[in-house]
């Protein structure tokens, strides 16, 4: 299984880099969040005094990166649909490769694709005046948190779209889940000002875990490393469900 997983994973990642347009969109999309949403909101945020000691950009960056990990799930799932439509799924399965290996390679590939946004976003944030007082350990923790988030989301996404062969399905599913998960989290606003029912969602939302952890590194507030554990549980759950679902319901064509 290791040989097949490595081959398919490399394929997923190489495919992204062979398509300049995809790279561009992947990189520009989170940047636009910072530029437009961040700029429009930063004065209001400063006036309210609820967004920590730094600029709103420093508050927003960990949140934006976290919501970006939500959307990479869609790309993994679209890559799977493409393989089904063009027959490549059949080509893979007429070798000693299991459906679970295909699932893992797609989920890991999508997560990796999510992570390439991190250096670009960090560089963009520097342009907007954010400083990064992180120790190497904190950097590692932050990237790991984002990876676990992306791995978990892409796993759930692939599980949901395993039987799908239609191009539209990933987009529809993404639209359906992105909005509530993004707003019912601490990604864009501090959850302390939410109504209690939304706080309840936010408190178990993995986007909140990752955004809060990243923010504590960036704003220098007290760090709760347990969030990494929560994210690991989320990722493990996603992988387990994706693994079981793909064995049974992953359509070949």
């Amino acid at each position, binding site marked *: 299984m290791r*040989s*097949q997983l*490595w*081959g*398919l994973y*490399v*394929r997923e990642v*190489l*495919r992204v880099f*062979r*398509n300049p347009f995809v790279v561009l969109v992947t990189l520009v999309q989170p940047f636009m969040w910072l530029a437009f949403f961040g700029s429009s909101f930063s004065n209001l945020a400063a006036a309210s005094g609820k967004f920590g000691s730094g600029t709103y950009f420093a508050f927003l960056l960990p949140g934006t990166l976290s919501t970006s990990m939500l959307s990479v799930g869609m790309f993994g799932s679209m890559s799977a649909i493409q393989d089904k*439509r*063009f*027959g*490549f799924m*059949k*080509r*893979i*399965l*007429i*070798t*000693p*490769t*299991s459906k679970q290996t295909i699932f893992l390679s797609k989920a890991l590939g999508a997560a990796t694709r999510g992570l390439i946004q991190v250096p670009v976003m960090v560089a963009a944030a520097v342009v907007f005046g954010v400083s990064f007082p992180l120790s190497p350990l904190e950097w590692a923790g932050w990237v790991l948190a984002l990876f676990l988030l992306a791995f978990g989301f892409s796993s759930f996404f692939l599980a949901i779209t395993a039987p799908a062969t239609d*191009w539209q399905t990933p987009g529809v599913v993404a639209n359906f889940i992105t909005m509530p998960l993004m707003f019912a989290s601490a990604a864009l606003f501090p959850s302390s000002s939410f109504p209690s029912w939304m706080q309840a969602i936010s408190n178990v939302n993995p986007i909140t875990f990752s955004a809060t952890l990243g923010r504590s590194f960036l704003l220098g507030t007290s760090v709760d490393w347990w969030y990494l554990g929560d994210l690991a549980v989320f990722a493990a759950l996603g992988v387990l469900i994706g693994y079981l679902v793909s064995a049974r319901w992953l359509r*070949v064509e």
Partner: protein
Amino acid sequence: MSTSAIIVNDLSKRYGNSHGVLALDHVTLSIEGGTVFGLMGPNGAGKTTLIKVLTGISDITSGTASVAGFDVQKESMQVRARIGWVAAEVILEDDFTTWENLWLQARLQDLKGWEERAEQLLQYFGLLDRKDDKVSHYSTGMRKKLEIALALLHQPTVIFMDEPTIGLDVATRRMLWDIVTGIHKEFGVTILLTTHYIEEADALCDRIAIIDRGRIVAEGTPSELKARVTSDIVELETSEAVSADLLSKIPGVQEVRAQGNDWIIQVAASEEFLPRLFATVRTDDIRRISVEKPSLETVFLQLTGHRIGQEEPMHDIRKFYAQMRRARS
């Protein structure tokens, strides 16, 4: 020693629930190792379904099948390590180079030390000097060659070729015929190919099974099958005035089949039949006439009552739209 590379025993495959289409209807086959075996039949006859079942892509409704000595359902991984597959439509990673495509295939087959074999195959197919070219720059013929090289990389026991020449121009089809014969000799691999081109089956295959509506209706060497048909086929289009009764009374007529005013008549010898026909039926009543000597085409016609290229029109239209959809996506 020759053993069976593929054994299919009383195999049925039904799609969907118990009211679904019965794509394979109690198929039994034994394909000897080292041969080229042809599955010949019209579109929708069950050829592709049989390949899907044998390669482990589809499950089985009832019966058993084994490939290279392993059960296709219980030992699917062992089967898949011993088979190669060449699709009707070429399926490659277009953004990758030739060598990267081979690398990926080697990873999927979990091969070590595959590089030498890969270079030999590229040499054999005349692609070695283009191994670092992106596949998207290749011609159809080169893409087919690379796909066959991928199928041969892990030294498989059996290669499945699903409609290998469909949609190809005449020159490329000829080239592919040479390749099939060539790799069979060079690599000693058993080849199971499906086709609805009769001349293709005749030219390439050691043995042929004729499949129609999910059933194997005949099996044998091309010459055995042709020998089964000793009679000629005469096709007629007539006016309303001609009846089955009238035609069957002509001496030498073995069987008369009618589709409206079109007749398919099986006769002992067309040379003797035609003068008698003209003596019986007024020539004004005959609009068209054609005579066929025994061939695989007439074998198929005689066994199934319809021509291999003849499909239900509805089926045709649905396929057309399906192709349109695929082309657009």
